[in-house]
Structure formats: structure tokens, C-alpha cells
């Protein structure tokens, strides 16, 4: 009996230690989780290497990376080169996603939202749908005099961070009073919070006369009507993969600064404004595991484009992936 227990114990220890050598562990941001999850499955099929990614949120991902609890961490908020150096971390972008303004107003199609209208919706100053700020851009649509309900994320999230970052870039007033945050107590008295993106999607679908920010993938999967949004140049851009790609190509992500930049509200006449890059952090001293990580990410850049687009994300443009490879080379982790 004891013999058997010993054998069983020994073999489990042996098995886990064998496996441990091949598992690449990651944790962090939930925004790109669906993409990473499909990428690592496809990579596992192709190469046999097991990659794990646990969604804990950006803050916990950053903490894990600092504590060296994982081989790589995902974060929606990039760290500044100074913080990276202090903690011995390296950083590069993983994938680009987009946030849309989903709405549910019976009888209204092709809603256009200007930059100031989006800010006014978020800060609660628009209370009814026929508000002049919305009506101005929608002359051909009959807007009802109904109470507007703003739907937002209840839980802390990278989506909220990227949306409020966009608002901060568009409006000085917003920047001063709220700033960019992963969760905040929203102003106004006609808003409700949904848990996770699916929760927001459900609320948007079930609550008439509602509007809210939601990532493109969830909006598409739930058949939520998305508003056309004014960009930096004053053009109204329909949220499509193509307009996201145009925006991503304009983003100024610089390897010299460890790609430290939030890409919201980019230049370009055809760029969709509410785009967001999500980043990967790796500890600089683990040269061997880092090579495994970059091999996995590189495989995803090359082979994961269809997967990303299928989920409503934008693969990084070739010009950018070339820069990232050079960055890896320079840091000796390719």
C-alpha cells in the first residue's frame, strides 16, 4: 500500500517537473484575453509548447511581472521606460483592439456621435436623446425625447482605461476632473454598470434608449448597433476592421521608448479614433524563457492575424512588428 502511494507520489512529482520546463506562464489584462487564449492554443498545436495566460486585470499583471511570478504579463496601460528600467522589465505591444459606442434606440439607425457628444454622454450632461449636441450631427434622424441611459463597465477594466484615456485626450475638462482610470465613479444620475463586457452587452440590448462603450468584438458578437464616431480630423468613421487598421498604422509606437504610448485618437483622415494597443511585459534577466516567449509572440504576429481579426482585433502592421523584432534583437531576447 505504502509502496503504491510512494510510486504515485514520485510519478506525479516527476510529471509536474517535466511539464514545468515547457510551460510559459502569463497573466494580466483581460481586454486581449480572447486573442491570447486562441493564439496559445494554436501555438500549442503547432509547436507542442504549452503557454498559459490567466486574466487577472492589468494591475495584477504588472504586479506579477514585478514579482517575477510569471514569464510574461499583459497590460493595457503601458509602463514608462523609467518604471520599466527600475523593475528590470521589457515591454512591447501585443495586439490592437477598438472600443465602440453601442446604442439601443428603437427606430434610430446610423447614429453619428461627435467628440463633444461622447464626452457629454460620459459625464452625464446629456440627459435626453434629442439633446442639441446629438441632434446637430443627426439632422436626418428623428431623435425621440426619451431619457438617455449610459451603460458602463462596473468592474475595473482596461476597456474603461482606454475609453477614459480617449476622453482625456478629447476633453480638457474630462482630463482635469476624471483622467484615465481603470475604474471610476461615473458622474451623473442616469447610468448603470454591467459586469464584464458581456454584462454591458446584455444591458445595452435589454435597456431601450441606452448607449455605452464596449469593445468591438463583444458588440459584434451581440449584434449591438454601433455609432459612427467623429475622429481627430472631423470625419465620421464607421467602426470596421479596416478603419481600425488605418488607425493602428498611424500610431507612434517607438522602440527607443519601449513602445511607451497610448494610441487613442490617432492622426489620419480615415482613422477610427477609439483604438487601443495592449502590451506585454517580460522580465529582462530571464534570457532563456524570454526567447521562448518572443518565439511564441513572433509566431502569433505571423500566423495569428486571422485569429485576431476573427475576434474583432487588429493585428499589428508589418512595419511595427519589424520594429519589435529589432527591439528583441537589441535586447538579446530574440
Amino acid at each position, binding site marked *: 500500500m505504502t509502496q503504491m502511494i510512494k510510486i504515485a507520489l514520485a510519478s506525479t512529482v516527476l510529471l509536474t517537473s517535466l511539464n514545468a520546463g515547457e510551460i510559459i506562464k502569463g497573466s494580466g489584462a*483581460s481586454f486581449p484575453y480572447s486573442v491570447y487564449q486562441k493564439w496559445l492554443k494554436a501555438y500549442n498545436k503547432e509547436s507542442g509548447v504549452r503557454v498559459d495566460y490567466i486574466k*487577472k*486585470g*492589468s*494591475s*495584477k499583471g*504588472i*504586479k506579477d511581472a514585478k514579482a517575477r511570478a510569471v514569464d510574461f504579463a499583459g497590460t493595457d*496601460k*503601458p509602463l*514608462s521606460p523609467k*518604471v520599466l528600467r527600475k523593475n528590470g522589465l521589457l515591454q512591447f505591444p501585443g495586439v490592437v483592439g477598438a472600443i465602440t459606442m453601442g446604442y439601443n434606440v428603437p427606430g434610430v439607425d446610423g447614429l453619428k456621435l461627435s467628440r463633444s457628444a461622447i464626452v457629454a454622454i460620459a459625464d452625464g450632461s446629456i440627459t435626453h436623446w434629442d439633446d442639441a449636441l446629438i441632434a446637430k450631427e443627426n439632422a436626418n434622424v428623428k431623435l425621440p425625447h426619451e431619457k438617455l*441611459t449610459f451603460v458602463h463597465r*462596473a*468592474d*475595473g*477594466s482596461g476597456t474603461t482605461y482606454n475609453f477614459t*484615456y480617449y476622453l*482625456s*485626450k478629447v476633453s*480638457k475638462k474630462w*482630463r*482635469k*476632473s*476624471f*483622467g*484615465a*482610470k*481603470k*475604474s*471610476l*465613479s*461615473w458622474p451623473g*444620475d442616469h*447610468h*448603470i*454598470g*454591467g*459586469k464584464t463586457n458581456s*454584462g454591458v452587452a*446584455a*444591458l445595452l440590448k*435589454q*435597456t431601450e434608449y441606452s448607449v455605452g462603450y464596449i469593445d468591438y468584438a463583444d458588440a459584434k458578437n451581440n449584434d449591438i448597433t454601433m455609432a459612427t464616431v467623429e475622429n481627430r480630423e472631423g470625419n465620421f468613421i464607421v467602426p470596421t476592421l479596416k478603419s481600425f487598421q488605418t488607425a493602428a498604422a498611424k500610431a*507612434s509606437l517607438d522602440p527607443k521608448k519601449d513602445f*511607451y*504610448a*497610448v494610441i487613442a485618437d490617432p492622426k489620419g483622415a480615415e482613422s477610427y479614433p477609439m483604438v487601443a494597443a495592449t502590451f506585454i511585459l517580460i522580465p529582462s534577466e530571464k534570457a532563456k524563457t524570454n526567447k521562448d516567449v518572443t518565439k511564441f509572440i513572433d509566431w502569433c504576429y505571423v500566423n495569428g492575424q486571422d485569429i485576431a481579426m476573427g475576434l474583432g482585433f487588429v493585428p499589428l502592421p508589418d512595419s511595427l512588428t519589424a520594429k519589435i523584432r529589432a527591439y528583441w534583437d537589441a535586447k538579446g531576447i530574440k
Partner: protein
Amino acid sequence: MEKIFQKLSISSATLVFVILIGIFITLFIAAKPAIDEFGFDFIVNPDWNKEVVVEITDTQIAVEDLSDQGNEIIDEDDMEITDEDDIIEDEDEVMFDEDEEGTLTTTIYGGLVPIVGTLLTTLIALAFALPIAMGIAVFLAEIAPKNISHIVGIAIELLAAIPSIIFGMWGLYYFAPIVADLVGGYQVSLLTAGLVLGVMILPFMAAITRDSMNTTPGVLKESAYALGATKFEVIKDIIFPYSRTGIIGSIILALGRALGETMAVAFLIGSIFVLPSAINDPTISIPVAMANNFGEASGLGESALFYLALILFVISFAVISIAKFYFLKKAH
């Protein structure tokens, strides 16, 4: 053998105490920064995660400089964490205006909204579930024929076994629209959350009450019937007084579950830090605030969440001990 058995059972009992005190101490230590910062005002302050502009006078700056030197290492780590919520600077835009130089903002946290939300949802749930649970229990224990009572009993136990996330999804997709149609207002609200919570605690109350009613000795009931009592009189005057302890026990258990329920309520309460002015307004409860914000919390925000946890701990403890001591003493 006898001794070992005795020791084992004693250590099991002490383990409960050790864990309880351990949790309390951990919560207290983690909540300490928020307790120091906000004190008891936390309980009555309705503002959560609100930026407040602090005007700094010269003396204050001097004091801060001094304290900075004292615990530089700790402060540096803190700074970094609060940094994570800050806007990063962009090359093509200066993110901060010059006129902000003289001002500094701090974030304040107050727990009034989640505390009120927790108490109100629990109250609604209890008010909804109590009469129905008593009805079920009386029906099962006294009125229903044996085979029907058996089937309904199984159904109730099954209801108790449903994971709370399923109640949350069911509530959000099917129950919330019905509630909104009936009473108006938002689909996710205090009322929706309270009612679904009521459905969740129903089986506990019903099952335990039924069991304690079943312990009423047959002799007592038969003597009452022999004296000419009706069924209603027997239930009212014999069964209820006899099983009072069990009924209160079931309410206490249900209260404990309702106070701490997280997942289902998170989907249904609307999760906004605003005091409800009507029963169909959205608000937030303590467990929901913690579940929603823990993943991305850091620094003082995380500590404030622990403060909330501590308050929930104390509330549950207080409610349950009051119920236990007051009602049970009365019962004996």
C-alpha cells in the same frame, strides 16, 4: 484512543476560532491605511473613488517634505502604484495645464453606498423569502401528502444546489426585463437584486424550517387535535412555537448568505456608487464593490476595499450574534 479522539475534536474546534481571528487580523492590517486615512467618516461618506482638489499651503509642503525623507523607501513604492492610474504623457500633447501646478488632487473613498446597498438588498430578500419559505415549510411538513411532499422537497434542495452565477445570468437575461416591465425604471436595480437574492435564500429557509417542524412530537399535535383544535390552530399554536429555534436558525443562515452573496448580485444591482432614492434604482453592495474593483485596485483603493470587507465582516457578525442571543434567549 479516547484521549486522541478528545484532543482531535478540541483542536478542530479551536481551528475555527484561529481561522476567524486570523481573518479578522488580516483584514484589519490590510485595511489599516484606509482606516488611518478616513477613520469612521468612511461609514457615512457617500463618495467612492472621488478626486478632491487639495490646496497646499507652504507649511503643508514643508511637513510633507519632512515626512518624505523619513520613509522614503515605502513612499517610493506607493508613488509607483498610484502612478498606474495616471495619464501618461504623449509626445504630441502636453497632458497637464500649467495652472494646475498649485493644486494637488487626492482620491477619497467612502463606504456609505455599498453598506446601505448591502443592508437593503438583504432586507428585500428577507421580506420576500420569509413568508414564502414559511408557506413552503408548513405545506411540506403538515399539509401535503407524503409523496408530493417528497417531490417538492427534492425540488427545493435542487434549488439550493444551483450555483449563484446561474441565478445571476438567469436574473439578468430573463428576470430583470420582467421586473422592469412591472415596476418601471432600470432593469438592474436594488429590487431585482433583492428579489433574486430572495429566491436564492428561499430553499435554505424552507428546508431547515421544514426539518425543524418535522421534529414536533406527534403526541403534542394529537393532543391538540383531541382537544378540538383545527389544523390552522395546531400549526399556529403547537408547531410554530415548538420549532421556533429551528426557524430562527434558518433565518440566520439565510441572512449570512444574503449579506455575502456576490456573483448573482453583481450582475443585477447596477454597480454604481449612488445612493438609491427609490426601490428600483441601481446601487451597489459591499461584496459586489469588492469583486468588481479588486482586480484593478492598488494602493489606497485596495485598502479601502479591505476596509469594506472588514465592515461586512463586522455587520455579519453583529447581525448574526444579535439574532442568536436575542431571539434564542426569548425562545427558551
